[in-house]
């Protein structure tokens, strides 16, 4: 099923141009692995980039040809990473970061996390698992908050989010949401800065705000 919510154009553009930070690239690639329309959008931007390359005003480098020709028979470097075995929850780009046995850590009742070895600014990228029915209180953000649903779903002020949906908010957005009652919600979470709590749910936000 095609996701209903997608990353903003500027994040897709950064990914296509190769200028997205690794954490954002991971988010976009994981969403796009589940979303044919976004793959099509990326392909358009790559076609534009290819046309720009073909039209670029750059001096030819015939001096490099002889060196390259001399290397045509050298053996190729070691084989690429073997593809990860398919997983019902974690698309391959993300599975490569998680490894075969992700180490879930219980932060507070209702919230478990796996932190990944990649950061955006000071914040580690994480995969979260929220218990059924959990209500995440209203909050805003110091920078981007990018959340990609991988299993289960939730309802927020700005709509319903299920597998493949990208929920992207910045400092202009204040929101909260409630996890569906029929199962846990697993999501990829990329934060650029601290989450700012609008309520006194201190313990819940201890991990999210880095307190």
């Amino acid at each position, binding site marked *: 099923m095609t996701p209903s919510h997608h990353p903003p154009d500027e994040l897709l553009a950064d990914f296509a141009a*190769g*200028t997205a930070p690794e954490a954002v690239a991971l988010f976009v690639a994981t969403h796009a692995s589940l979303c044919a329309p976004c793959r099509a959008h990326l392909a358009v931007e790559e076609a534009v980039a290819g046309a*720009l*390359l073909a039209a670029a005003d750059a001096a030819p480098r015939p001096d490099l040809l002889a060196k*390259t020709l001399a290397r045509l028979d050298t053996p190729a470097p070691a084989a690429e990473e073997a593809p990860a075995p398919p997983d019902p929850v974690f698309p391959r780009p993300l599975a490569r970061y998680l490894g075969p046995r992700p180490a879930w850590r219980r932060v507070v009742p209702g919230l478990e996390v796996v932190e990944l070895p990649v950061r955006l600014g000071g914040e580690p990228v994480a995969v979260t698992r929220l218990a059924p029915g959990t209500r995440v209180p209203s909050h805003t953000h110091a920078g981007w908050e990018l959340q990609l649903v991988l299993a289960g779903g939730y309802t927020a002020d700005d709509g319903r989010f299920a597998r493949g949906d990208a929920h992207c908010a910045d400092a202009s957005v204040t929101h909260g949401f409630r996890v569906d009652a029929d199962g846990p919600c697993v999501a990829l979470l990329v934060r650029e800065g601290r989450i700012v709590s609008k309520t006194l749910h201190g313990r819940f936000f201890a991990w999210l705000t880095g307190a």
Partner: protein
Amino acid sequence: MALPLDPASFGWSAASDRELVAAVADRRDRVAFGELFGRYAGRVNGFLVKGGLAQTLADDLTQEILLEVWRRADRYAPERASVATWIFTIARSRRIDALRRERVVAVEPEDDDPAPSAEAAIDRERAESTLRAALAGLPEEQRRTLDAAYYRGRSMTEIAEEQQVPVGTVKSRVRMAVERLRGALGGRT
């Protein structure tokens, strides 16, 4: 892929990019590779240097990128993208790796996209020349902005500083320009 006319009989300079890649893939043709090199090595080198790499590193990487073109010619899919786009994606990965020492993350589709039709390769070549003409016909500030974003690899903030405009204006220019060019590709890739 059998070619109806053998471009080698009238010189590779008249061959299309796709014909050159096919000759490399099918026959390991070094003369065809040399022609492809002549078309793209300088531009790839410019892409790397303008993206922030030192000239000596860019020279090494240019060779490696064209080597990868040689090694992976059999995996090029003409119905999916132009040769220029294919070379761009190889160069993009190398630039990310060299500039930021970061893992290069690739999209890995869970569901297969429908296989493009046999006509798709012809449609695509036609669409690409329309795209190139449309690119040349863009308003100057849109073209400059696209070049900064996709060829020189500048962030939106950097482009805003260069052009002395708000970041929002840069984002709009990119969005509007891409939308306009999408029309040239017939709305589908």
